[in-house]
């Protein structure tokens, strides 16, 4: 698995290399394991895009997936809400567990899974409907019609997504009239409305300007108190700012999975170091 760092002069470094690549958040063992991947392999046809990945993510933490384009970050992220199921050539082996339950087990309904595991996409994708309609969509498809519950959910979700103050007087306005950053926060509110426990974010700020980006980052900080968050990002500073742990992928392999500050200050693998310092071929 990758080449280890060359300049291993100090003993601390050698100590580190002895540890397994599957590591735990030693700083906070009180948190349970929320997401787990056991020997996961993913293929698109003959293309082997995720190779034997093992990792454990604790609840109420933020984990960043980083790595060069095409290394499989999005594919791996989408394993946790089974969004790859729609790709005809997709197949996998191994196990993906949420709360210790294999989500690829035949008994799991994907619809129920996705109510528990919300997703925010790279490009804001609100429905071409009102702000209100967007937020209640998840409740609507569950058949919830009680106006009181809907109103309350809209308010709570928009407050949680730090959008309420900006839109509370125009809930019936089209979501498409909002700015990109507001649209993305609306998409977060929409995901929160069904009370998930996990939120997956695939480059949620890559289409936004710096101010909108920092709003999303602040939001992630707040949301992590209640949700387990996994975020794919190409922005190293962002990974450093928002995440507790960072997973570095390279051509389908999980090279390194450590506390974020360790990954950035003292990466174990040469590939990781080259990637985070921007010296990547």
């Amino acid at each position, binding site marked *: 698995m990758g080449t280890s760092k060359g300049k291993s002069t100090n003993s601390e470094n050698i100590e580190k290399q002895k540890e397994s690549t599957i590591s735990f958040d030693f700083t906070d063992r009180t948190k349970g394991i929320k997401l787990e991947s056991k020997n996961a392999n993913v293929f698109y046809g003959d293309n082997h895009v995720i190779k034997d990945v093992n990792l454990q993510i604790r609840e109420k933490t933020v984990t960043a997936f980083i790595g060069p384009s095409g290394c499989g970050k999005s594919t791996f992220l989408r394993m946790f*809400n089974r*969004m790859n199921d*729609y790709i*005809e050539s997709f197949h996998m082996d191994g196990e993906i567990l949420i709360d210790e339950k294999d989500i690829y087990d035949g008994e799991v309904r*994907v*619809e*129920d*899974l*996705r*109510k528990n595991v*919300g*997703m925010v*996409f790279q*490009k804001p*994708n*609100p*429905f*071409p409907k009102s702000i209100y309609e967007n937020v209640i*969509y*998840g409740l*609507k*498809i*569950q058949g919830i019609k009680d106006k009181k519950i809907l109103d309350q959910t809209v308010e709570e979700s928009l407050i949680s997504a730090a959008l309420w103050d900006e839109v509370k007087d125009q809930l019936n306005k089209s979501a*498409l009239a909002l700015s990109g950053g507001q649209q993305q926060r609306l*998409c977060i509110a*929409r*995901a929160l409305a*069904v009370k998930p426990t996990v939120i997956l974010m695939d480059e949620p700020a890559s289409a936004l300007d710096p101010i909108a980006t920092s709003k999303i980052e602040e939001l992630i900080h707040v949301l992590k108190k209640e949700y387990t968050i996994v975020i794919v990002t190409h922005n190293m500073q962002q990974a450093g700012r928002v995440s507790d742990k960072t997973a570095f992928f390279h051509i389908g392999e999980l090279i390194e999975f450590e506390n974020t500050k360790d990954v950035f200050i003292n990466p174990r693998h040469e590939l990781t170091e080259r990637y985070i310092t921007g010296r990547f071929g």
Partner: protein
Amino acid sequence: MNNADKNQLKDGLFKYFGIFASLIGLILLSIFIASIISDGLRRIDWQFLTSLPSRKSEKAGILTAWTGSLWIFALTALISIPLSIAAAIYLEEYSKKNRFSKLLEINITNLAGVPSVIYGILGLEIFVRTWKLGGSLLAGAFTLSLLIMPIIIVATREAITAVPSSIKEASFGMGATKWQTIWYQILPSSAGGIATGVILALSRAVGEAAPVIVIGALAYVPFVAQSPMDEFTVLPIQIFNWVSRPDPGFITNAAAGIIILLAITFLLNGIAVYLRYRWQRHVKW
């Protein structure tokens, strides 16, 4: 004259030919409409709209024809819209992309080009004889549905494909089922495009004479159809019948009938254009 001049001349000539070619249709149509209006407009009155057919041109009315066309419009819409939209949804969202579905797709596209009289013969065999519907409104509506379903299916598929996949992903990502995604997201987002196709197709159905003649719609129907099993006539057949009479009074009746048929067609096309315009303005991704 040097080469450059020659080319310029050719260019100029071609331009004028182009203008002429594009205007000729419009001019001929205008002349036709003007002469029809001058012949027929004065004939359109309450008596004309509410009278049954008659041997005497000044007593004859168009009641059975326009009510027949209305019946055909409604029944054809009822049959063709749900079936076509269901077929389009199946092809676009459910069918596995294999050779069979390819073949099906190509066939549906080609069906849109089959001459309408062929559909009449098909309708005669299936609906009139096998299903024993006779020359009824229902048989006519089924036949015309066959004729316009390919048009609606193609238009619906285009409208559905125009819905961005990011919207579908958002819906699935929220835990929606496929059917919920179709019902709450795909259909509302493509409704404008579907409606446009439906109306254009129905306006074609209302204007058709050949297939309904083949299945046995009559030129002379002395009563207003009361049920889908009644015999019927439609505007194009009534017009065709009047035009072929020697009495000049009937020619005037025919002109009046044409005005009514054209008015209906233009109205439907106008609605289609309006819907398309509104849809394009409102749906920006």
